[in-house]
């Protein structure tokens, strides 16, 4: 039974690597969806959801925009749930082991993107030599290689993780696990900081403040705030369109008006 679970967990890791790279992420590598799957496989959906939910909130806003490399919270989720169910470690300890694994996985990301470069040149060579039918094969090879990004760390944990966690549980002091739990509460700030860096904060500061006030003082839940945001967005949009149409008439078709979004 354990052996089958081991295999399935590794397969989830392979699937997650593929799904997250496709144009149609169904689970993506979001902790909460992956947590549900791993929980089902490990026969403990509640643990899966609690750990997935914790890591989901911890990682809000951390996204690999434009192919950038960010800590792999999806891998952290798989590893944490696997270890929690196998060793009986509590959520905090399991995440304390899973999160570093997710951060180490980031290093593999860089290596694999360099290997992909070799595949790209190989495929170009096949094209020039008119071996068109082999080109697809090279791309499938790229996909399998990419899966290794998650398969390697998860397999290592499946093979060697349990004794390590047992050891850690015996020697780890209380203030240390408490500290990690505090860190878990603070970590969502990284994602929020990244979002703010990416968005036009200086131009639309007022909406950031409105969001804070409505939530902190009035306790409106997030969907309510999203609707309020949609209302504000609609006003901004129709105003902008009106403005740019006036501009359009004035400059007679000079469409390349300086765009103000920064990357």
């Amino acid at each position, binding site marked *: 039974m354990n052996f089958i679970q081991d295999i399935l967990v590794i397969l989830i890791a392979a699937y997650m690597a593929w799904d997250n790279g496709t*144009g149609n992420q169904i689970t993506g590598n979001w902790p909460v969806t992956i947590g549900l799957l791993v929980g089902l496989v490990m026969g403990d959906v509640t643990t899966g*959801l609690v750990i997935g939910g914790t890591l989901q909130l911890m990682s809000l*806003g951390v996204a690999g925009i434009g192919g950038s490399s960010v800590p792999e919270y999806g891998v952290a989720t798989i590893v944490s749930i696997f270890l929690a169910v196998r060793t009986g470690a509590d959520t905090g300890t399991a995440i304390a082991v899973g999160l570093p694994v997710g951060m180490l996985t980031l290093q593999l990301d860089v290596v694999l993107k360099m290997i992909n470069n070799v595949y*790209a040149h190989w495929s170009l060579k096949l094209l020039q030599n008119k071996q068109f039918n082999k080109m697809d094969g090279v*791309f499938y090879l*790229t996909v399998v290689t990419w899966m290794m990004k998650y398969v390697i760390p998860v397999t290592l944990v499946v093979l060697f993780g349990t004794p390590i966690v047992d050891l850690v549980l015996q020697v780890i002091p209380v203030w240390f696990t408490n500290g990690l739990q505090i860190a878990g509460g603070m970590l969502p700030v990284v994602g*929020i900081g990244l979002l703010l860096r990416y968005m036009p904060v200086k131009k639309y500061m007022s909406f*950031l403040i409105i969001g*804070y006030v409505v939530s902190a003082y009035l306790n409106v839940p997030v969907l309510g705030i999203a609707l309020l945001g949609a209302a504000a967005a609609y006003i901004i949009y129709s105003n902008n369109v009106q403005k740019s149409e006036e501009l359009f008439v004035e400059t007679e078709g000079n469409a390349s008006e300086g765009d103000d979004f920064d990357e």
Partner: protein
Amino acid sequence: MSKLTEKDRKSMFRRWIFGAGLGYNYESQQAPAVVFAMRKALRKIYPNDEEYIEAMENHYKYFNATPQMANIILGATLAMEEKDGLKAKEAVQSLKTSLMGPLSGVGDSVFWILIPTIMGSIAGYMALQGNAMGAILWMVMYIAFYWLKMWLCKVGYESGTKLITSLGKQISSFTDAVSVMGLMVVGSLIPTVVKMITPLEFSTGDVVLSVQTEIFDKIMPALLPVGLTLLVYYLLGKKNWTPTKIILLIIVISLVGAATGILGIA
């Protein structure tokens, strides 16, 4: 040169969905996936080997766009090549490069920021209580997006070159509007999702004064999370502070805070 059928266009779409971000490399980024997606449809447009190679080589050049929005661009590209063949080579390249920036601006805001942030916090809180509904809804929603993307590809194919002029005007207005919604949601996350409290207390005689409830909370709710957000925002603007370094910094602060009793579990 033969006309593309709806089946050819949909096959291109499905091949793009299969591999969008998977060939990612530092030199040409998503180009290998573009080549994989376009290969069969282009073969139909260029039955001549030499022409086919020339057209395909064009697609080995740098491409990077939000996978969802790239459907519009690839659809338009297909329409141009079908209409003008190799004469459109330069135009195809400039269409791709000029659209990927603005379309990704919108796409990243919607598909990487707004939806994951809103769905993530709803599904995350539900999961903490052992409720799987949020996670399931999220997956159902993304499955439904398949048809949205198919439609985007169709829009791109049907508008072709007209796309730049018709989108150009509205797209920056749209990006702005979406950012406003995003900022409002982010503003609400600071006091709800970031947890940072201090258990410190001052006692004078019988009176015990809790720093958190008697001082910080009286000033404003979530004072410490707001301060922490400002600090992280500032650090992220510095060149040598990566997200990973900031995560490590926070873990160190938490460990020190726990050991000294300055920070507590919220």
